[in-house]
């Protein structure tokens, strides 16, 4: 067994982890170590060969690999050591991190840990589609991996289930590949899952049909997928009898949601939030375990990689502060999410905090609503939206003269 001691260990080298490692170092911690189980840095970015990254961070449209390249350059400039092909297997209650790679099993003692493990995809089993279980059903990310990193063609006639950004991007990707054809994109909700710009650029421009309020109700083919039955669903998302339609296809891509990958967090004893399925954090992004921080998709699902990186920068700064100055565990006040709010972040506010960046998502698209944030009876923020989407994470800064100890956020109906 190999033993090491470091000040800060960062787990996961995607856009969040890379940024966190760079920022920790820049904020005055020399002994930082970045751990990544892949043989490359960049996380999910490397398989996202389409443009759409970097608008917020670099003010230009980059592909995933180009975006990763910039972060990696910074990492090299800062001279942060990293271990590739190194999987973290365990974090124990004393913050001992166990890593496996071909050199052996390494136990790392760290003063602070930054969790940046990203997410995994929801699978067919999780969404319970009836029918046979043949080859030819892939989650979108796995299909993307096969196509972009392994040069493998998963099929010819492809149906995409899920109209989130990933689903729509994959539909276009299929349209662009020779010998592959996107049959349609299906969405169980009555509204689009992803950003409107992605519908225009990925579906409309390529004449890919989108069926809302529609889902897969049967899978045919005992060995390789041979076709699907799709059905319209009612307002409770239950299939409506009599609306069944058969579609011939040999491939189904599932883009039905991402789940923060918090198995390690759980082992470390970190409390998780039901809303985000990520760690519960305070405004320093410190979790329920002192000195353990979280950022990126492992904390909550981001639609934009830039925001995952920005979170990484912030967490790096805080972890550095924790290591260099230290802090006592303060009292923390929960933020109450009211009507219409799917989740918010942070979930807790540290005592004596007067300024806060709040992120939230609404449950579904709303029209003519006001977002209202209060501290006790005092209004801190209000904004009217003629339209607000679940697919767009909202970021709001609030300030207060008095400490923020009783913050609530909710939606209110307004006149058109």
């Amino acid at each position: 067994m190999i033993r090491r001691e470091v000040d800060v260990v960062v787990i996961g080298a995607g856009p969040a982890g890379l940024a966190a490692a760079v920022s920790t170092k820049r904020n005055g911690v020399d002994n930082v170590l970045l751990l990544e189980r892949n043989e490359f840095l960049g996380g999910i970015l490397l398989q996202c060969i389409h443009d759409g990254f970097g608008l917020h961070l670099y003010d230009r449209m980059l592909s995933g690999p180009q975006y990763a390249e910039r972060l990696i350059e910074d990492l090299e400039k800062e001279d942060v050591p990293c271990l590739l092909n190194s999987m973290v297997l365990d974090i124990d209650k004393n913050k001992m991190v166990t890593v496996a790679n071909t050199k052996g099993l390494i136990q790392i003692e760290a003063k602070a840990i930054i969790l940046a493990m990203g997410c995994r995809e929801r699978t067919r089993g999780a969404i319970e589609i009836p029918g046979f279980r043949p080859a030819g059903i892939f989650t979108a990310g796995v299909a993307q991996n096969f196509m972009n990193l392994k040069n493998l063609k998963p099929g010819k006639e492809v149906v995409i289930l899920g109209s989130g950004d990933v689903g729509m991007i994959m539909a276009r990707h299929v349209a662009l590949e020779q010998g592959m054809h996107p049959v349609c994109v299906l969405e169980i909700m009555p509204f689009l899952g992803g950003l409107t710009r992605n519908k225009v650029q990925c579906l409309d421009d390529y004449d890919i049909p989108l069926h809302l309020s529609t889902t897969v109700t049967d899978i045919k083919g005992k060995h390789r997928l041979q076709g699907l039955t799709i059905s319209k669903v009612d307002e409770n998302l239950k299939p409506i009898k009599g609306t069944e339609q058969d579609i011939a296809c040999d491939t189904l891509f599932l883009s039905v949601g991402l789940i923060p990958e918090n198995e390690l967090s759980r082992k470390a004893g970190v409390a998780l939030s039901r809303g985000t399925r990520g760690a519960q954090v305070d405004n320093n992004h410190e979790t329920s375990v002192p000195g353990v921080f979280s950022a990126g998709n492992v904390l909550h699902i981001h639609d934009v990689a830039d925001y995952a990186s920005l979170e990484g920068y912030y967490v790096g700064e805080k972890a550095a502060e924790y290591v260099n100055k230290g802090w006592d565990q303060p009292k923390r006040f929960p933020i109450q999410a009211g009507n219409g709010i799917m989740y918010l972040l942070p979930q807790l506010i540290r005592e004596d905090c007067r300024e806060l960046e709040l992120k939230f998502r609404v449950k579904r698209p709303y029209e003519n609503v006001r977002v209202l944030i209060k501290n006790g009876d005092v209004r801190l923020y209000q904004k009217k939206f003629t339209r607000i989407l679940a697919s767009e994470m909202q970021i709001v800064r609030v300030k207060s003269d008095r400490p923020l100890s009783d913050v609530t956020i909710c939606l209110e109906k307004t006149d058109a």
Partner: protein
Amino acid sequence: MSEPRKTRPIPAPASSTHDFIIIGAGVIGCSIARELAKYHGDCLVIEKEDDVASEISKANSGVLHAGFYMPPNTLKAKTDVQGLAMFKKLSEELNFEMRTNEKLVVAMDEEELKHLEFLYEQGRKNGVKGLRLIEEQEIRSMEPNINGKYALHSLFSSIIKPYEFTIALAENACRNRVRFLFNEAVTRITRHDSTFHVGTSEGNTFLSRWVINCAGVHSDDVSRMAAETGYEIHPCKGEYYITDKVEGLIQRMIYPVPPKHGAGLGIHFTPTIEHNILIGPSAQYISDRTDTSNTAETMKTLKTEIHKYIPGLANIDFIRNYAGIRPKLIDGKGDRTFADFVIEENKKVDHLIDLIGIESPGLTGAPAIAQMVVDIIGNKEDLKRNEAFDPHREKPVVFAALSCEQQAELIQENEEYGIMVCRCETVTQAEIVNAIENPLGVCSLDAVKRRCRSMMGRCQGGFCTPRIVGLLLDRYGRKPQEIYKNNRKSNLFCGLIKD
């Protein structure tokens, strides 16, 4: 990294006459194969799918029943009780996992209690040990998270991984010179003097003195290839859910009182060796005996049982569904609730042994059933002990089950233990390689999955499938079109994106 290695090819079948041909490599065929390997004689197993345990033996509850469900003086009761008693030794010899985690059959009211008393009495007659009737308070102390007023507590009911057991039997048989032939279906059985000619879908003919038909849901069809004896299988589907890992919610198997005149034991909750929970099986008679699809209605029914018995399970994620087919016989009176196993020399064709209707508790009974078959043969001719028979199968390394020190040591010995291929179940590249290079020479993704648990966890292969496919392409020189989920019709890819 080492040189590309090919998986071991299956030795070419001899053209001469075999002593035994076994049709079907489920748990029954593989148990018989291993039992026969203890004697002299040349044995060939023919299987239409690409691996052992490809039909019923992979899709059941994996429960070793104690023996109180079956009427006394039936083959079902007898092989169940005898079979269970043989498992401990088998698990030591063959190194498969078995956990005696006990069972509660739960009654909700006085009416159901009567049925428990009946089962208790039946168990007593069958010679079942470790049975007790208990009440609510004791149920609570054993299983705080379940509902129930009374229960039959069975101390020796156990769980195994049915595919692991079947693989272990087959690998050990293979090591003791039984040969396995995959991807060939038997389509024809004729008899010329004392020799059977067994023809296959690939146009091959194999000769044998004995034929043993253990073709599961197809066993009536296979029997009919030789002679019409009037047996007919009525396929009855059982569907399941698998949950994500849930440690601590239940320790024991939780069963309902069996439905009256039902086709099964009722929808139950079975903790697995890896701490998932199986919910099922349903019971529907179907017409297509290969229809293992899951249906929306049944999936709904399965979920309602959760609320009745283990409400706390409602918040757990599901990771997968599956279905198995019971090969049911219906007895002469048309009673659908019970027909005994058929284990006999065919009434019209001697030296052909039929195993028909081997539904539950066929997994538990398999070791005893295999002995019965050997006895049938032994009654007709002298079977000579094979002194060279080695009953042991080496224990495959399960990295995740080892201590840190052992893990560290393994990585020093072989660096491929330091490469994690499956994140959910912590399966290393060394284990994947070991699974790919299995003694039977089978190599679909499902074959790898059942040998090392990769692709079985909560992400269902999202992380490891690309890595395993990478290995098959790069190290084993597979073509993209030759990567299969299971049989040869289940290709994952149709080629390259760019040639």
